[in-house]
């Protein structure tokens, strides 16, 4: 089926920033009257996905230097003629819902460079961590840019969410902080594909963290077939270690390609939809559909390729299940009388 997208696709794919901005605005829009446009655009994007695209998630605690690190990565990729789209997520105030989005200034780029696009987002009140439409926004940036980066704050929960949204997860770590290791050991946090100790200029503390983590990784890898996490030292202030980081990113992308990336992406989509479904409908909703495993099965059978399709499918099932339940109650009442 050919879909007519509601935006100027030629301008979009050519990377015209006006078209990219417009499309992102549309995908962020929650109004019911634009829902069908959002669906059409998301569907078109997922059907026309380009091979070789790479979505990278970068996460770490505040102040660890994620933005200045991304700034150096942008510099590196631009030098190698690669284009980059970035989504940077900041927490929002639980009281007012407001947010201060100030990270983009740390990512240096020329305003007239069409090869870099940055959109900041507030985390919003989504219980499932990342909001559902992040998936759509990433789909869009993937379609336009060679590299897509998703930057989030935090340690723990958000890594799990991010792992469902991107191909490669980078955790950025403060030299000398043992938290990350503890989190990984205790299973609170999934093991990232690449661990970066930024601020390598911190000297001994950085070097110690580097060897600690490297040793820990050897013990943590369980399966020979598993990806072996890479530990890297960088220094944004001295611009060191970024070629190593870029190589590691390439390595991971090749590994993914050799390990059925398409299947992995579908699995990721279902996982993120499951998390989102649980946040929306809770345990009651899960029970209605027969539990988590059954939900994953429904998604698998639906062959949904966009977050939107998947959500609609689950929504339909829930309503149907509700209706059945209501009917049962009604039948029972009729029988009683």
């Amino acid at each position, binding site marked *: 089926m050919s879909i007519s997208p509601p935006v100027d696709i030629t301008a979009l794919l050519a990377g015209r920033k006006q078209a990219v901005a417009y499309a992102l605005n549309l995908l962020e829009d929650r109004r019911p009257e634009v829902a069908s446009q959002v669906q059409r655009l998301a569907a078109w994007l997922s059907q026309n996905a380009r091979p070789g695209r790479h979505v990278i998630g970068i996460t770490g605690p505040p102040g660890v230097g994620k933005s200045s690190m991304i700034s150096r990565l942008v510099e590196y990729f631009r030098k190698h003629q690669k284009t980059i789209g970035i989504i940077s997520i900041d927490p929002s105030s639980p009281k007012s819902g407001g947010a201060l989005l*100030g990270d983009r200034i740390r990512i240096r780029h020329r305003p007239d460079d069409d090869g870099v696009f940055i*959109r900041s987002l507030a985390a919003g009140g989504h219980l499932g961590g990342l909001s559902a439409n992040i998936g759509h926004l990433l789909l869009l940036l993937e379609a336009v840019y060679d590299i897509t980066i998703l930057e989030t704050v935090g340690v723990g929960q958000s890594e799990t969410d991010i792992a469902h949204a991107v191909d490669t997860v980078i955790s950025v770590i403060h030299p000398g902080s043992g938290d990350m290791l503890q989190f990984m050991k205790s299973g609170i946090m999934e093991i990232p594909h690449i661990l970066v100790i930024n601020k390598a200029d911190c000297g001994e503390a950085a070097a110690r963290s580097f060897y600690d983590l490297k040793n820990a990784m050897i013990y943590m890898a369980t399966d020979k077939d598993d990806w072996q996490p890479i530990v890297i030292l960088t220094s944004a202030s001295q611009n060191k270690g970024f070629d190593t980081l870029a190589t590691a990113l390439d390595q991971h992308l090749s590994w993914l390609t050799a390990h059925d990336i398409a299947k992995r992406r579908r699995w990721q989509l279902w996982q993120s939809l499951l998390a989102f479904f649980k946040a929306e409908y809770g345990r009651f909703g899960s029970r209605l559909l027969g539990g988590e495993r059954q939900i994953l099965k429904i998604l698998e059978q639906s062959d949904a390729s966009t977050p939107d399709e998947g959500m609609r499918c689950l929504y339909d099932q829930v309503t149907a299940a509700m209706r059945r339940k209501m009917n049962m109650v009604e039948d029972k009442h009729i029988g009683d009388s």
Partner: protein
Amino acid sequence: MTETRLKEKDKPWLMRTYSGYASAAESNQLYRSNLAKGQTGLSIAFDLPTQTGYDSDHPFSYGEVGKLGVPMRNLEDMECLFDQIPMAQMNTSMTINAPAAWLFALYLTAASRQNANIADLRGTLQNDILKEYLSRGTYIFPPAISMRLSAEVISYAVRNVPKWNPINICSYHLQESGATPVQELAFSLANAIAVLDEVKKLGQVTDAQFPSVVGRISFFLNAGIRFVEEMCKVRAFDTLWDRICLERYHVQDPKLRRFRYGIQVNSLGLSDRQPENNVARIIYEMLGVVLTGRARARSVQLPAWNEALGLPRKWDQQWSLRLQQILAFETDLLEYPDLFEGSPVIAQKEKELTEAATAELQKILEMGGAVAAIENGYMKRRLVESNAIRLGNIENGQQTVVGVNKFCDGELSPLVEGMERAFLTVDDAVEAEQISTLQAFRQKRDAAKVEEALDALKQGVRDGRNIVEVSMACAEAGVTTGEWTDALRAMFGEYRAPTGVDGLSLPMETKTENYKVIEKVKKLNARLGRNLKILIGKPGLDGHSNGAEQIAVKARDVGMEVVYEGIRLTPEQIAETALQEGVHVIGLSILSGSHTRLVPEVSRCLAQRGLSDLPIVLGGIIPEADVRQMNIPAVKKVYAPKDYQLNQIMWEIVDIVAAAHHIDMADGD
């Protein structure tokens, strides 16, 4: 018995007016006429490109050349500025910080060309870099490097220009950012300690010379309208400084421990409503720092009555000078010794301030000193907080401002009535002229010599030679301000300070109002489909970010998503951010007076990106006539610093966004 009347009248303080504009030649005319009127020293204002180390033709300089001060690009400019003014006899204060070493080198070179003996020169360099990170925003390099440069200037001056004040530790700008008297005391004393410790660490002066370094430290204070408390504040400064010099630096000579300071009275409290009342404010504020003989200001600069409207004209400056002269020469103030010695009321207030400031200073020192307290954002956070409280007090009427939140009805002032512009405007043609004189200068100089001097500068810095020393050869060779700074930028990098708005929430004193705005934002969010997103931008080189920060924090607290990127952005960067972020409205804050150039330029860059309908609100000192003249339909509203009712501003911004999307907010939910 103590002396109750002085045998000889005290010498009056130095009287200056902070001035300079357009070009070196125009400013030279202005200085000569001010000196002829009885002004006894010069206070040079440099334009923002000079203060941030850019030449007049750099993209960042767009719209700022000659606006807030004189453009000073090279030796030729400096010589022109002092044409027929004998530098050997002059006492010159220069408000310059990040590139202080360079401007000092230009001054010294120009003076020796006038055959002045460098060792006799008198004057003051501001050279206080730490407060730039907190409030004024004209920093260039990272804090550690800046501190070293500052210490080198001090070391050079103590050895070669011994009567010069090589640094003016400023609490002035801290008060302008909202500091309380206790914060003013503690923060600036912490700054002074950081500077002295740095000079010591640098090791360019001997241990024997160190007491004279301490003796050359001077301060630049602010005086607010609560003049009794302000007087106690300067007395507390006097007491605390003496204690620090003695206990921390073991300076035995009491003369070298004297607290020497100049003053510019508060501009923050000046209003553009019934602006003639500002004259009364200026006088009362001056009283705070001249009444007490024990800690009287050494030099006084007064703002002009119309500063909240725009740049003062010659006549406005003259009026401010006359206010000082009447107090010094007509009244009997200078005939008596200190009027307040022995007053239990004053002693008690002074004690309270001294104790509170000592505790706060101790806290900062324990944190690792002033540099640490700036890098970790502590001082900046405290200032943004105090300013929010101050604004809140004016908003809820706890603090009275006559003509602003009380006694507002009044007759129209004949001083401003019928006048389109009761202030000075700098012709936009000045910028083009200055660019062409600069380019002509570059043409005629010996390019090889310039290269050689710049190489020698870099080598000298690497070898640890004194920065003033190595810069003087650059001045002679015809290096420009932008070139000198670029050479150092390449070596040291550039710095962006924390914005001070992270993790801050304004005190919600007017809770219901706040709640109403939050509800309104939520209602609009649902209608927009996306959360209301606002970009707060500061185009140009103006570093006064307090207003922008207050608006950013407030907008966040009422539920808006706020994109704020700090100071020093080009119009193109702002337009590009607006596009990429998909914002619903832009707030531009401009206090440098260059709005007539910058706003149209931002608007042009937005139009290029298909965003000509994006609503814009302006904040700053922007006269009504300028708004009309710019005639940009997207500009929906202009706010002045006196518009303190932040909830009202937020309310209006929501309405502006709603109107731009044809949403009727009166509709049911």
